[in-house]
C-alpha cells in the first residue's frame, strides 16, 4: 500500500503560543518500500509518524493510506480504524500480559478469525525466531527480545502499513547491529510498506530504500542513501550524514559546460582558490563547499599521478586522531583547517604536508 503525506503541518499549542513541530512536509512511501524519516531529535520525524498513525491531530495537509484519506485538519480516522501497525520506541508491551497475550490482544481487536489466532501467534513467533518465549512476561525478556515481540505484535494482524519509531534506540551497540540485520530479514519476509523513524544515519543507510531527511520540522532532502551522501543539497544534510568539510565560498568564474566554478575560500588572513563542481546553478549565488574527509589526499597518496596545478595546498598537520580502521588528521592551511581521513596513520603531528582535492569531490551547495 502507498502512504502519501501532503503538506503536513502540526503545531503544538501552549499558553505562550505554538511550536511548529512539522512544517509543510510531503512525501510518498510506495508499496513494499522501506521509507526512512531521518533527522536529529526535535526535527519532527516522530510527530510525522504519530500523525500517520492517528495519534496526533494535524493542522494542515492530508494523509492518505492506499488512496483513502485518513487525516485532514477537520477529520481524522481513529488509530484503531487505520490499517497500520506501530512499533514504539519503548516497545509499549503491556506488562500484565505474556508475549502471547500481547499478540492475541491485537489479533482479537483486529477481528482475526477466531480459529486461526493460535496458529497465527505461532507463525509470528517463528518469524521473530522466539517460538519458545510466548509464555513469558515482558519483564522476563531481554531488550532485544521485547523489541521482537513488539514487532510481532505490530505485524501479526497483517496491517498494510508498518510504522516504526526508533525501534532499535534502546538496545546496546552490538544488539543494535544484530537486530538491524534481523529486522531487514523479517521485513523482507513480511513485505509491507514500512515507514521507519531514526536519528542514526548509519541505520538509515543500511536499511532504507528511500530516506527523507528532516530538519527543524522541514524537509531537508529526499533520496536514496547514496544520493544523499554523495550529492547533499545543504550544509545540514552534508554534515548530518557523515563527516564533511564545510567552507563558505565566493564564486570567481563559472565554466557552465563542465559545471565547474572557480571559488575563493577565506578564513582569517588566509585565502585559497578552489576549483569546485556544482549540480544546479541556483547554488552559485551563496555557495558552501562540501568536501568529504576521505576525498582529501595527502600528497604521498597521489601515487605519482600528474601533480595537480589546482586544488593543491601546503599545510601543517595540527592533530592526529587514531581510530583503528582509519586515522583522522586536522591539517592547517594557514587559518583554514581541513579534516582529512586516511586508511593508515601516515601523517605525524607537526609534519608539513601538501593536500589535494579532485574538483569533482568539492561540491558546491547552497548555504541556505
Amino acid at each position: 500500500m502507498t502512504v502519501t503525506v501532503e503538506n503536513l503541518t502540526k503545531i503544538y499549542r501552549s499558553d505562550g503560543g505554538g511550536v511548529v513541530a512539522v512544517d509543510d512536509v510531503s512525501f510518498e512511501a510506495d508499496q513494499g518500500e522501506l521509507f526512512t524519516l531521518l533527522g536529529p531529535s526535535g526535527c519532527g520525524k516522530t510527530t510525522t509518524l504519530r500523525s500517520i498513525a492517528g495519534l496526533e491531530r494535524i493542522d494542515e495537509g492530508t494523509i492518505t493510506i492506499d488512496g483513502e484519506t485518513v487525516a485532514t485538519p477537520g477529520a481524522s480516522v481513529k488509530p484503531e480504524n487505520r490499517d497500520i501497525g506501530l512499533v514504539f520506541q519503548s516497545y509499549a508491551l503491556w506488562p500484565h500480559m505474556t508475549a502471547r497475550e500481547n499478540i492475541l490482544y491485537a489479533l482479537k481487536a483486529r477481528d482475526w478469525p477466531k480459529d486461526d489466532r493460535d496458529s497465527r501467534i505461532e507463525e509470528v513467533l517463528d518469524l521473530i525466531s522466539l517460538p519458545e518465549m510466548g509464555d513469558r512476561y515482558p519483564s522476563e525478556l531481554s531488550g532485544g527480545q521485547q523489541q521482537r515481540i513488539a514487532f510481532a505484535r505490530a505485524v501479526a494482524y497483517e496491517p498494510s502499513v508498518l510504522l516504526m519509531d526508533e525501534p532499535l534506540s534502546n538496545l546496546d551497540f552490538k544488539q543494535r547491529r544484530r537486530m538491524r540485520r534481523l529486522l531487514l530479514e523479517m521485513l523482507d519476509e513480511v513485505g509491507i510498506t514500512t515507514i521507519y523513524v531514526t536519528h542514526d544515519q548509519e541505520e538509515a543507510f543500511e536499511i532504507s530504500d528511500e530516506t527523507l531527511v528532516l530538519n527543524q520540522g522541514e524537509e531537508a532532502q529526499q533520496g536514496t542513501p547514496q544520493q544523499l551522501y554523495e550529492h547533499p543539497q545543504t550544509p545540514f544534510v552534508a554534515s548530518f550524514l557523515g563527516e564533511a568539510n564545510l567552507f563558505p565560498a565566493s564564486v570567481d568564474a563559472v565554466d557552465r559546460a563542465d559545471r565547474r566554478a572557480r571559488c575563493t575560500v577565506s578564513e582569517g588572513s588566509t585565502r585559497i582558490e578552489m576549483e569546485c563542481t556544482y549540480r544546479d546553478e541556483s547554488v552559485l549565488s551563496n555557495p558552501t563547499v562540501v568536501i568529504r574527509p576521505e576525498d582529501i589526499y595527502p600528497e604521498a597518496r597521489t601515487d605519482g599521478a600528474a601533480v595537480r596545478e589546482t586544488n593543491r595546498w601546503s599545510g601543517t598537520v595540527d592533530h592526529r586522531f587514531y581510530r583503528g580502521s582509519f586515522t583522522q588528521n586536522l591539517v592547517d592551511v594557514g587559518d583554514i583547517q581541513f579534516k582529512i581521513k586516511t586508511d593508515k596513520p601516515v601523517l605525524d603531528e607537526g609534519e608539513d604536508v601538501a593536500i589535494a582535492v579532485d574538483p569533482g569531490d568539492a561540491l558546491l551547495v547552497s548555504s541556505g
Partner: protein
Amino acid sequence: MSLERDERTVRSRAVELANPRWIPLYVTLLFLGIFLATVVALFAGSTIFGVGNQEGITLELAREVLLSWELARIVFDTVAIGVGAGAISAFIGAVYAWLVIRTDMPFKRAFRVMVILPLSMPFIVKGIGWISVLSPQIGIVNVFFKNTFGFVLFDIYSLWGIIMAIGFGGLPLAFLITEPAVRSIDPSLEEGSRIAGRGLLGTFFRVTLPLLFPAMFSTFMLVLIFALGNFDYPFLLGSAQGGIDTLATEIFQVVRGSPVPKYNVAGLYSIVYVLIAFVAITVYWVTTRKTHKYQTVSGGSRQTVHQLGKWKYLAVAICLFLWGMSFIAPFAGMLFMSLTPRIGALFSLEFTLANYAQLFSIPTLRSVVVNTVAAGFVAGLLTALFATFIAYTSLKYDRFTGLGDYVSTIPLGFPPIVYGLAIFWLVLMLPGVSTLYGTLAPLVLALVFTRLPHGTRMVTSNLIQISDELEEASSISGASWSTTFRKVIVPLIRGGVTNTFLYSFIGSMRELGAVVLLITAGNNVLTNLLLQMYNQDAGALPVVAAGSMMLFLMVLSIVLVYEFAGAGKYTAGA
C-alpha cells in the same frame, strides 16, 4: 475505515461527546457537582433556611458569635492542638526513622514493621485507651500513682493531654513521610560532620535534623491539618469533660448538645472552621511545592549505618517508648479496662469477660456492626471508583488536568464534621431526597468525601507510571477506548485502586467526625455507638473498652489484608 465528520459541525460534536472516552471526565464533573451542591447546601441552609421557627444567620447573631471571647478561646484551642500535635509528630517521626534506618540499633526490622500497627486503632479507640490509662480518676497509671505516691502523674483531660495523644498517635504517618527522606540523606554529609569533630549526637542535631527539615515540615503540616479537623480526641478528652472545646466539638455541641439545635451558630462556626483549614491547606501546598524543588533524592545512594556502641540500648529504649506511646499504652489500657470486673479493681488482677457479655447483649449491636461494615464497604467501593476516574481525568486529558487536581484537592479544606453538617443540609433541602435522612446513604457520601483526596493521590501515583504509549499501542492494535480502559489501564492500576478501596474501607470504619451529625436511630455505626455509651455513662467505660476492642480487631483484620494482599504485582509501567 470511515472519516469522522468535521468536528465543527453540531452533529459530530454530539457524537464526539457521546464517545465513551469522556466517561472519566463526566464522572469527575458529577463528583464536582455533588461537592459544590453540598457546599451550597451548607451555607444556604444555615444562612437562609433555618429549622422550625429558628432564624438563619442574622447580622446580630454573626456579631454576637464572631466577636465573642468564647470563639477566640475555641479557635485558640483548635489551633494549639494542631500546632502542638504536629510538632510532636514531626520530631518523634524523624528520631524514630533515623534510629531505625541509619543506626546499627538491635531489632531494627521489628521496629520498622511494628510502626504501622497503630494505624489499625481507630481514634476513638485510642481515646478510650488513653482514658483507661491516664484519666485522673480511673486511669490505671494515675490510680497507681495516687495510691503509691499520692499524686496524679498526668491528666489526660487537658490541652496537653489531647496534644500528646494526637502527637504520639501520628508516629506511623510521620515515620512513613520521613523514611524516604532519611534514606536519601547522602551519608558523606554526616560522615563529613563526624570527621570535622562532631559526635554522633551533635551530628544528628546539627546536620541530620536540618536535612530532614522539609520532610518534618510536611509531617507537621499534615498532622496539623488532621488535628485541626479531628473530632474524636478533643471530644472524648476535652469537651466531654467540659473545659476544652474545639470548633469540631462545638459544632457538635450546638447541634446535638443543646436542647434546641442551633444550626445558625453551627453554620457560623463552620465558616470560621473552613477558613482556618483552607489557610493550613494553602500553606501546606505552597511549602511542599517548594520542597520538591530543592529536595534532592538521588536513588541508589549507598547506605551507611552509624555504629552506636553502648548507646544502642538507649536507642532501643527511645524507640520502645515512642512506639509504646503510640500503640502499647492506649492498647494495654483498653485491654485491661475491657477485662476488669469494675473500675478501680485493675490492680487486684481479677479478670472477667462480663464486659464483653454485656456488650453482646446490646440489642442493636448486630445492626450497628452490619451498618459499620456495609457503610465502610460501599464507601470504599465508591471512593475507588471516583478516585480512578478523577485520577484519569487529571493525568490523561491535556485540557482538563487542572480540573482533576482541583476536584481532588479542594475537599481537603473541609473538616470532616463540616461535611457531615453540609450533607445533613443537602439531604434535607433537596426535594425528594429527604427520605434518605436516617439511612446509610448520607453517611456513605460523607465518608467518600473525606477519603477521596488521599484515595485519588494513591491512584494517581500508580496511573502516572503507566506510559501513554501503552494506551496508544492498544488503539493502534485496533482496540476501542473502553476496551483499552478495561483491558490495559484497569489491570495495570489494580494495585492502586485496591489500596484506595482498602484505605477508604478502613478509614470509614474508624471515622466518627464525618458521620456523627448524620446518625439517627436507624443508621448507627460502631464508632458513634461507643461515643454514645461513654457519653451517657462514664461508668460504662469497661463495656465501652470491650466495644473498642471489637472495633480494633475488625479494623486490624482489614489492615492485615491491606498489608499482605494490597499492592498489585504489575504496578510499574513499561
